[in-house]
């Protein structure tokens, strides 16, 4: 029961309080690049959620069963990034086969999940807490999945706002990306309200 409670706490923390985009600045490229309409934002969010959960599981195993026993922790960056690259390749093949429409609308941003810092970020965060008190496999998975959920929520909120912003009368120099950043700033202020929750 205690384990379950702490898992829930990690989930809430990573979805709302320490939201990866709005609090930790991870994964900003797709956040600004793919959030122009809700459909592709949702697709991107789902893909990232899947990759993050898988990454958390696989990198946990790699770190604990290969890198740590052999004392080659210094290879951690190379090992993790190669893992992520292969996982993204897998997701790309799955999406291409099952949802060609989504595949087209995501375009270049699908292979770019590899260079989404949120994915490598969650793997490194999982590892970092491993040094203190070891983060269990379940906690790593929950942290990865929760980070993906938080990412999707932020993407969806942003895309909804940006769809309306296209009709609004924004000063010419702030159109598109700058106004998106200012909107993100206001959203981040709103999300600061969650910081008292834990």
């Amino acid at each position: 029961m205690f384990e379950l409670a702490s898992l829930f706490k990690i989930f809430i923390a990573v979805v709302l309080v320490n939201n990866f985009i709005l609090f930790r600045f991870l994964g900003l490229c797709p956040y600004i690049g793919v959030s122009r309409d809700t459909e592709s934002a949702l697709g991107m969010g789902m893909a990232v959620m899947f990759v993050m959960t898988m990454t958390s599981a696989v990198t946990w195993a790699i770190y604990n069963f290969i890198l740590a026993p052999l004392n080659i922790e210094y290879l951690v960056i190379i090992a993790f990034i190669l893992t992520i690259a292969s996982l993204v390749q897998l997701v790309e093949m799955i999406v291409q086969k099952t949802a060609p429409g989504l595949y087209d609308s995501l375009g270049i941003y699908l292979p770019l999940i590899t260079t989404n810092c949120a994915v490598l970020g969650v793997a490194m965060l999982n590892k970092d807490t491993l040094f203190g008190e070891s983060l269990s496999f379940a906690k790593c998975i929950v942290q990865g999945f929760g980070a993906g959920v938080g990412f999707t929520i932020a993407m969806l909120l942003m895309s909804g706002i940006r769809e309306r912003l296209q009709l609004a009368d924004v000063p010419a120099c702030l159109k598109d990306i700058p106004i998106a950043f200012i909107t993100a700033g206001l959203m981040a202020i709103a999300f600061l309200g969650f910081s008292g929750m834990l």
Partner: protein
Amino acid sequence: MKTQFFKGIIQENPIFSLCLGLCPALATSTSVKNAIGMGLSTTAVLIASNMTISLITTTLRAVSGGMFYSKIQNIRIPLYIVVIASFVTMVDFILKGFFPVLSKELGLFVPLIVVNCIILGRAEAFASKRNIVFSLIDAIGMGLGFTLGLFLLGTVRELLGAGQFFGLSVFGKNFKPAIIFILAPGAFLTIGFIMGFFRHVNALRAKKGN
């Protein structure tokens, strides 16, 4: 050669014009010191990886005479990433060894230089097609542009959010800093307005040109 160098600094400034490398730009610009540390670390990796990748691709092209190179083409991205990741590991150790405080402040974002889009972007768009000298100049220009962008963000945020510049108090003791500029929302607001300003200036310049 001169244009190769200067294009990265203003016209194709990686942060404000190309919108690349946004995550480290926002996360590490809480103070000028961190901003410069991050900018220079990224520049170092960019220079090393640009030169190495240019060397690898030119050698492969010369040795294979086309046939072998076209096979390599499919695995070029993993190849670039391994090169970049090795240099990032080195920079990580150097920072940990010689600048432990800075290394702790930058934290997660040192290993994350691997996934900085500027570096992979320059490898793919420039270094894999040009010789080593051009790649070096391109890397220095782009790296300086990135560092300059970080410096600008860091200056605004540290002045408004802490009333300091480089850790030195600017406005005296009675100044009440707006702490929000050091927190996450301030970063988004600052970059939004600076980007708007850059675009405004560019638009004015284009109008003058006509």
